[in-house]
């Protein structure tokens, strides 16, 4: 037997200097031989720990064994038993905190590149453009309304359609996909090649998607159930309310929420302005406030839009960055300047209504807080100005209140998140289920998908009981 490599097969990537100026995908994907070689690193453990780290419980050793045997159709079929968007998850899941964190190889070296293998299997299938066989729905099939076409809603819709329910997704924006379309940039998750194809496949299966419908305004949930004939509703509206820092100067021109910055670029395609009419003024020096994946996305987007200097300003240290390690690494490679242990206190005006600088104070790390991260404390008198003309606030999102505020009987907690059962996603309103960021607060694509899956199972059980089956 060959000696086992301690490191993952490297992911082919665009050169950092080149990719920092284009929106093409950064990671290029394994070819067949690399994928098989990486799959051969899997020890096929008797008690595979990797699966315990997957929020949707993908049969990881199962699909890896199929890749090893070059049975790629078998591999993707195995993944799809539990994950309906593998091309997405293979790209954006934080594997290092999930499946790969539990891989036994990780004890001595690097874990198996599970995410990369998942992507390989998914991309390979997608390239084949397989015919999707539309579901045949019974005449009296029950109807389910899904609010929000993001990861939670899409997953829930797919599972329910495959169980024979007539599903309609209502999406507020003009494009389905939720954060996959408006949030995650093209260079990390290609829209036409991946996101649109996954959504088109759902539609081919028989899921109806109505874009441009703001539930809470055009219809309330009560109206959907009482007048539009829906037997159950799933709310997956996500974390659609940007947090600001509440520091002086936040309403100056040149200050964006990460949601606005990314929506203009990704959804409205401002990076192709003026071919696309939506502008995005990026300036020469950009400070992105925050240390999560959204902050990395905004910083790397700013570089690609032509900013000369892009800072990440984060109040804790390197080890505390909530972003996927790979994202922070890619950002650094591309030239993003990490200003760690700095906290913004004011956005300074140029006197004409525009940003001139971001005033920060230096921080030092104290004792670990409830979240286990060492909490930062300001160093007195250490204020300084970072000269920038654009500031992007990427410190998180809260729940958008439009649906909850128009749905009597559906409880929310004090943060405004919808209260839902962890296992069934049932809300306090009968027939209404909720999952994803609207319940948990801003989290990951895969957790939202996991919730969509659980909800689909619970909705199936609820509707079976309702029809007396």
């Amino acid at each position, binding site marked *: 037997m060959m000696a086992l490599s301690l490191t993952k097969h490297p992911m082919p990537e665009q050169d950092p200097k080149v990719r920092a100026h284009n929106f093409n995908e950064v990671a290029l994907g394994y070819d067949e031989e690399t994928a098989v070689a990486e799959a051969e690193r899997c020890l096929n453990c008797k008690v595979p720990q990797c699966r315990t780290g997957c929020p949707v419980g993908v049969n990881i050793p199962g699909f890896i064994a199929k890749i090893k045997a070059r049975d790629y159709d078998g591999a993707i079929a195995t993944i799809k038993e539990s994950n309906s968007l593998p091309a997405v998850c293979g790209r954006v899941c934080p594997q290092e905190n999930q499946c790969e964190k539990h891989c036994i190889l990780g004890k001595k070296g690097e874990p198996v590149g599970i995410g990369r293998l998942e992507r390989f299997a998914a991309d390979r299938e997608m390239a084949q453009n397989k015919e999707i066989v539309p579901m045949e729905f019974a005449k009296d099939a029950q109807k389910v309304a899904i609010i929000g076409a993001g990861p939670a809603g899409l997953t829930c819709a797919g599972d329910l359609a495959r169980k024979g329910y007539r599903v309609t997704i209502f999406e507020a924006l003009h494009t389905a996909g939720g954060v996959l379309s408006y949030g995650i940039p093209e260079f990390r998750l290609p829209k036409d090649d991946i996101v649109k194809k996954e959504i088109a496949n759902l539609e081919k299966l028989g899921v109806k998607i109505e*874009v*441009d419908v703001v539930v809470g305004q055009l219809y309330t949930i009560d109206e959907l159930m009482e007048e539009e004939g829906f037997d159950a509703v799933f709310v997956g509206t996500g974390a659609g309310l940007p947090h*600001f820092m*509440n520091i002086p100067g936040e*309403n100056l*021109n040149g200050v964006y929420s990460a949601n606005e910055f990314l929506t203009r670029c990704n959804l409205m395609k401002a990076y192709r302005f003026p071919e696309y009419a939506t*502008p995005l003024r990026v300036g020469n020096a950009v400070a992105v406030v925050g240390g999560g994946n959204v902050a990395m996305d905004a910083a790397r987007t700013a570089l690609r839009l032509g900013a000369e200097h892009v800072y990440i300003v984060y109040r804790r240290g390197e080890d505390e960055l909530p972003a996927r390690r790979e994202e922070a690494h890619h950002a650094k490679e591309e030239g993003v300047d990490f200003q760690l242990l700095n906290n913004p206190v004011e956005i300074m005006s140029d006197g004409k*209504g525009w940003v001139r600088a971001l005033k920060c104070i230096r921080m030092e790390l104290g004792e670990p807080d409830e979240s286990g991260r060492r909490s930062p404390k300001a160093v007195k008198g250490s204020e300084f100005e970072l000269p920038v003309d654009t500031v992007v606030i990427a410190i998180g999102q809260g729940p*958008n*209140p439009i649906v909850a505020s128009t749905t009597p009987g559906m409880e929310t907690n004090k943060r405004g998140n919808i209260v839902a059962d962890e296992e069934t996603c049932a809300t306090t309103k009968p027939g209404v289920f909720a999952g994803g960021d609207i319940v948990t607060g801003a989290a990951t694509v895969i957790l939202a998908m996991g919730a969509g899956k659980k909800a689909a199972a619970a909705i199936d059980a609820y509707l079976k009981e309702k029809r007396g089956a």
Partner: protein
Amino acid sequence: MKAKVLKKELLSPKLYRFDVEASRIAKKTQPGQFVILRVNEEGERIPLTVADFDREKGTITLIFQEVGASTELLAQLEPGEEILDFVGPLGQKSEIEPGIGTVVCIGGGVGIAPVYPIARGMKQAGNKVISILGARNKDILIMEEEMRAISDEIFITTDDGSYGVKGFVTTALQQIVDRGEKIDRIYAIGPVVMMKSVVEATRPLGIKTIVSLNPVMVDGTGMCGCCRVEVGGETRFACVDGPEFDGHLVDFDGLRARQAMYREMEAREKDHVCRIGLGRDE
């Protein structure tokens, strides 16, 4: 959803009235609310306040001015053609109720359009409606007949005196105040300068003055925060908390500055030669 243009009318140079087929939206729209539309795949999302809605015909009426590339694109649509995306209703509805008393409804320029459904609603609710319509000159005054039909009294002002009272909407407002009319509420919709001057005029009088704001927006559902405006020292999102706010609490200077955010970029863009052959007949 897509929405077909049913009727198109040029009210004055660069000022259009569109009747759009959107029955589901018309059924739900209330005075004070707005829609967001996107003309085509490359277009911006444009917020436009609803000028009228007809629940029976299933139509929404829009009145808009050609001010940039996106409204020019919209103006090029002909009856029978479709707007690619038409979303609504959005925002909070106006607080219209019986028993308010005397309501002065002020519209300036294209701002007369969104005032109309509010004034009509106020009248239908049994309030006394005094309207003030302001325009730069007689030729660009819109909706006079419609407003006259639902107002107990109407004032017209033009900057150049070509029609009605010479002066601004505040000139007419002063006349109403001076004759001792007890005013219970004022609605003022129009350019920021106009709303600000109305608000400054009514502040010492202590008359509740509602304004409708039109900052730059993207999604219109509270997701991006682009439309944030300071009201009473707090940051509010015009798309979901508004578009109407208590004018006495609004930071108009901040609003004006933010509205100018993309002016330079868009002006530069105006010099370009269109690759798909769209003319600019100015």
